[in-house]
C-alpha cells in the first residue's frame, strides 16, 4: 500500500537524481557528448530514412532537390508521382525476388554454419595461453580486412584464368578451369563461403569474451563431479553464454541484411543478377540506373524488415536481458 510519505519521497526523487547526476559529472558528460552524436545520427540516419519514405512513391532520376519540387527551368516538377508502382515493380521483379532469397540465405548460413563454427572454436581456444592467442589472431584477421579488398582478393583467387582456381584445375587435370564466380549455381555460394570465412572470427571473439566471464569455480566443480568437456559445454558454458549468443545472432541477422561490399567486387550481382543481395540490388537498380524513387522503395522495404526484426527480437529472445 502506498502511503502519503511515499508520494512525498517520489516527488523529491527527480530533482535529486538530476542533482546527483550534476555533481558526479554525468549530466555534464551527457550535455557535452549527446548533442553531436544526436546531430550526426539525425543528419545521416534519421533524415535519409524519412527522405527515402517520401521519395518512394515517385519516379525520379535524382536530378533536382526532391521529386515534388518545381523545376523553374522547365516549369514541371523534377519527379512524377507513381504511387505504389515502385513497390509493385519491385515485388514483381525476378532479380528482386532472387536478391531477397539470397539475403535470407546469408542469414540462414550465418546462423546455422557461421555461428556454430565460431562457438566451437571459441570453446577450444577461450582459455588464455600463448598458442591460443596466436589462434585467435589468425581467426580474427579476416574480420580486420576491408570488405572490398577481401572481395577483390577472392575475385582473383576464384578466377579460372589466373587465380588459385586455375592452379587447382590444372592440378586436378581438368580440361577446362573452374570459374565459380561465372557459374550461376556457384557464384552466390562462393560469396557465402567468403562471408562465413570473414565474419566467424568476430563472433568467436564475442563468445570468447563471454566464456572468460564464466566463473572458473563452476567449471572446476563440474569437472570434479565427472562432467566431460562436451557435457560442460552443453550444460554449463552454452547456457551461461546465451546472452552473448543472442547478441551475436542479432549482429548476424542485421549484418546479413546489409551485405554489399563483398558482392560488388566478386560478382557485381551476376551472372544474370543471380547473386544480388537486397543492398546490391538497391544500388544497381536504384542508383546506377538513376531511378532514385525505385531505389528508395527498396530502401523502405529493407528498413521495414530490419526494424520489424529488431523489435520482435528485442521483445522476445532478448527480453529481460
Amino acid at each position: 500500500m502506498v502511503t502519503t510519505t511515499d508520494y512525498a519521497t517520489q516527488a523529491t526523487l527527480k530533482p535529486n537524481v538530476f542533482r546527483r547526476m550534476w555533481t558526479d559529472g554525468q549530466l555534464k558528460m551527457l550535455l557535452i557528448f549527446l548533442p553531436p552524436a544526436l546531430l550526426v545520427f539525425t543528419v545521416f540516419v534519421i533524415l535519409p530514412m524519412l527522405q527515402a519514405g517520401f521519395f518512394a512513391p515517385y519516379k525520379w532520376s535524382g536530378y533536382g532537390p526532391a521529386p515534388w519540387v518545381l523545376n523553374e527551368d522547365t516549369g514541371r516538377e523534377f519527379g512524377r508521382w507513381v504511387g505504389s508502382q515502385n513497390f509493385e515493380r519491385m515485388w514483381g521483379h525476378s532479380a528482386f525476388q532472387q536478391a531477397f532469397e539470397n539475403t535470407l540465405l546469408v542469414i540462414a548460413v550465418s546462423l546455422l554454419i557461421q555461428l556454430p563454427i565460431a562457438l566451437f572454436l571459441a570453446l577450444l581456444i577461450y582459455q588464455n595461453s600463448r598458442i591460443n592467442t596466436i589462434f585467435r589472431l589468425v581467426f580474427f584477421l579476416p574480420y580486420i580486412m576491408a570488405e572490398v579488398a577481401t572481395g577483390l582478393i577472392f575475385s582473383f583467387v576464384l578466377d579460372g584464368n589466373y587465380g588459385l582456381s586455375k592452379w587447382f584445375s590444372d592440378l586436378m587435370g581438368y580440361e577446362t578451369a573452374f570459374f565459380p564466380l561465372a557459374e550461376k549455381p556457384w557464384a552466390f555460394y562462393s560469396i557465402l563461403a567468403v562471408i562465413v570465412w570473414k565474419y566467424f572470427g568476430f563472433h568467436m571473439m564475442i563468445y570468447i569474451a563471454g566464456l572468460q566471464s564464466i566463473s572458473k569455480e563452476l567449471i572446476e566443480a563440474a569437472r570434479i563431479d565427472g562432467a566431460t568437456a562436451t557435457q560442460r559445454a552443453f550444460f554449463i558454458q552454452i547456457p551461461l553464454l546465451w546472452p552473448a549468443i543472442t547478441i551475436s545472432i542479432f549482429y548476424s541477422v542485421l549484418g546479413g541484411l546489409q551485405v554489399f561490399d563483398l558482392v560488388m567486387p566478386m560478382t557485381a550481382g551476376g551472372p544474370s543478377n543471380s547473386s544480388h543481395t537486397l543492398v546490391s540490388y538497391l544500388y544497381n537498380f536504384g542508383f546506377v540506373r538513376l531511378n532514385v524513387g525505385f531505389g528508395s522503395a527498396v530502401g523502405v522495404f529493407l528498413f521495414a524488415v530490419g526494424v520489424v526484426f529488431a523489435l520482435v527480437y528485442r521483445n522476445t529472445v532478448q527480453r529481460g536481458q
Partner: protein
Amino acid sequence: MKHVSLTLAASLAITASAAVADVTVDVLSINRDSTPWLGLYTDAAASYEAANPGVKINLQFMEDEAFKQKLPTLLQSDAAPDMFFSWSGGVFYEQAEQGFLRALDDATVSEWQQELSAGGMAALSHNGKYYGAPEASQNVAIWYNKDHAAALGIDPTAIKTYDDLLGAVETAKAGGVTPFVVGGQDKWPLHFFYSLIAMRIMGQEGMAASAAGDHGGFNNDDWVRAGQEYMRLIELEPFQPGFMGVKYDAATGLWGDGAALFHLMGDWDLGASRGAATNGGLSDDQLGVIPFPMIEGGKGAITDTLGGASGFVLTKDAPDEAVDFLKYFMGVEVQKAAASGGVYIPTVPSAGGLVEDVILKQFAAIGGASTYHQLFLDQFFGSELGGAINDVSAQMATGDITPEAAAELLEETRAFQ
C-alpha cells in the same frame, strides 16, 4: 625569417596569378589522365590559355563509374563544372530536360555545324536545342586475329552474312580455338551482339519505332527474332570458359594475349587490349576488322553502325568563355592533332583523313561509310531501359530468359519509363 619571406613570396604569386586569371573554366572529363589523351588535353588547354590571357582552363578527371555516380549531385552543387564529358543518350536527355545544361544560341549552332560534325552535333542535341560539341567517333566492329584465322583456314573478310559468322564460330570451335572473348560480367559487351543483330533485323525505322513505342515497342516479332538469332550464336557456346565472371578489362587482356579468334568491340579496344595484355598485345599485322555481318531478310544494312557519339556539353551557368573554349577544344585544330597522334578517331570531317594508325583507319572507314549510326542501346534508351537491355543480353547468354520474355520485359520497362 627566410620562412616568412618565402610565404610572402608564395602568397604574392598566388595573388598575382589570381589577378591574371579572371575566369576559370572547369572541365570535367572521364578517366583520360593517361597518355595519349592527357597530352592532347593539356596541350589544348595550354595553347588556349596562351592565346586567351585571363582565362584559366582547369582540367579534372574522374574514373568512369565514379563520374556517372557523382554527376547528378555535382550538377546540383556549387562545384558543378562548366562543361563535362557526355556519352549522349538517355542520361544526357534527362540532364537537358531538367534544365542543367546551357543551350547554344542559334548563331553559334549554325557556325559550329559548318566546321564540326553536324551528325555529332545532333547527337548532343535534344528537343531542337544544342548543348555541346562532339569529340570522338566510336564504332563497334568484329576484330579478328589473323594468326588464328590463317591457322583455321578462315577468311574473315569473306564473312558477309550472319550464317557465315556462325560457320566461322563452328570452325573455330572444331579447331580448338575460342571463337569470341567477352567480358560478360559487365553485361554491356554482350549487349553489342544483341544490339547489332536487332539493328540488322529492324533497321533504323524499326529502332525508332521501338523507341517511340510503335508496333508494340519492344514486344514485337523483330525483337523476338533478334533474341532468337542471338540464341543461335549462344547455343554454339562461342565464348571463353567462365565468360560471365570476367569484366571487359580482363577480357580484352585475354584478347590481347591471343586467346580467341574474334572480339566484338569498339575502336578504343586497340589501346585497351594492349594495355591489359601480358606481353603488349597483338601487333597491327595480327589484327583485322570486319563489320558485323548482315542477317538474311533484315531491313538494316551491313553499313549501319553501332557506336558512341561522345563529346562535351555545357552546364547551365557556364560562362561565355566556356563556350569559346569548347569550340576550340573540340575544334578542327585539336581534332587534327588527335587524329595524327592516334588518340581518337575525330568527328570533324576535315580531320578524318589524318588518321594514320592502320587499325584506327579501318574504323574511320567503317564510320565514314555509315548509312545509319545507332548510339549504344544502353545509352540511347537511358539508364533504366538501357540497363534492362544489358540485363537481358546477359540473361539470354546464360539461358535464363527466352527471347520472347526478354522482348516483353523490355517493353514493360519502356512503358514504365
